[in-house]
């Protein structure tokens, strides 16, 4: 990954939402009404290996959303985050892969293979959500809105529950055991 890859990822996942939020915020403040729902990811809570661009962009979106929640909340505007895990969408076809993931010669090729196998095995037990499941959470955030973060899917729920109950070191151990990682 080079810095331009990271910038491109931030354009879509961070600067895009930032532009929209700052464009709409003045009207919402004036009306003292409005709801902003940002679609983050389970990757907005954990940094998985070989997922640096995506995960860091979603962590940034989480942090921006949290600060906007405080700031706009003062004016009666609500901000929410949605954190899906794997969802059955064309996401996999649309993403841009670089380095080992793009089949280039890389010191990370073996790690990538191990990680993808482990993640696929875990995915068989947790399954994937449908786009409509995520839409349900977004509608709930808009219409009820009693939570700041909404997780979607067994995978995302599992991560959120584990993060709440464990230190980072315990979480890492649990993930390594769950994934059967040998490194």
């Amino acid at each position, binding site marked *: 990954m080079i810095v331009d890859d990271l910038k491109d990822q931030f*354009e*879509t996942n961070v*600067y*895009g*939402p930032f*532009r*929209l939020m700052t464009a*709409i915020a003045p009207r919402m403040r004036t009306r003292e009404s409005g709801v902003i729902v940002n*679609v983050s990811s389970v990757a907005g809570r954990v940094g998985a290996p070989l997922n640096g661009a995506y995960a860091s962009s979603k962590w940034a979106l989480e942090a921006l959303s949290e600060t906007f929640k405080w700031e706009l909340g003062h004016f009666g505007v609500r901000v929410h985050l949605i954190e*899906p895990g794997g*969802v059955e*969408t*064309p*996401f996999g076809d649309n993403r841009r892969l670089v380095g080992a993931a793009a089949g280039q010669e890389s010191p990370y090729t073996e790690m990538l293979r191990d990680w993808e196998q482990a993640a696929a095995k875990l995915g068989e037990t947790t399954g994937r959500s*449908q*786009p*409509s499941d*995520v*839409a*349900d959470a*977004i*509608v709930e955030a*808009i219409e009820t809105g009693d939570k700041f973060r909404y997780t979607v899917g067994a995978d995302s729920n599992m991560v959120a529950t584990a993060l709440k109950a464990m230190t980072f070191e315990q979480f890492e151990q649990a993930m390594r055991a769950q994934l059967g990682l040998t490194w």
Partner: protein
Amino acid sequence: MPKSVLITGCSEGGIGNATAAQLAAKGYNVFATVRSAARAGDLASTDNVTVLELDVRE
């Protein structure tokens, strides 16, 4: 007056598309943005939905 909602990333098969369809069915006035209008799918002919071309990177 129905509530209005702007949803980015509404191409066929994705989360935004499903969200636009649900909110439109509930009576919201939906503005659904896609990078290419040709990929809006059923939203192009859905009541309460206005499809707009928008790239959040620009």
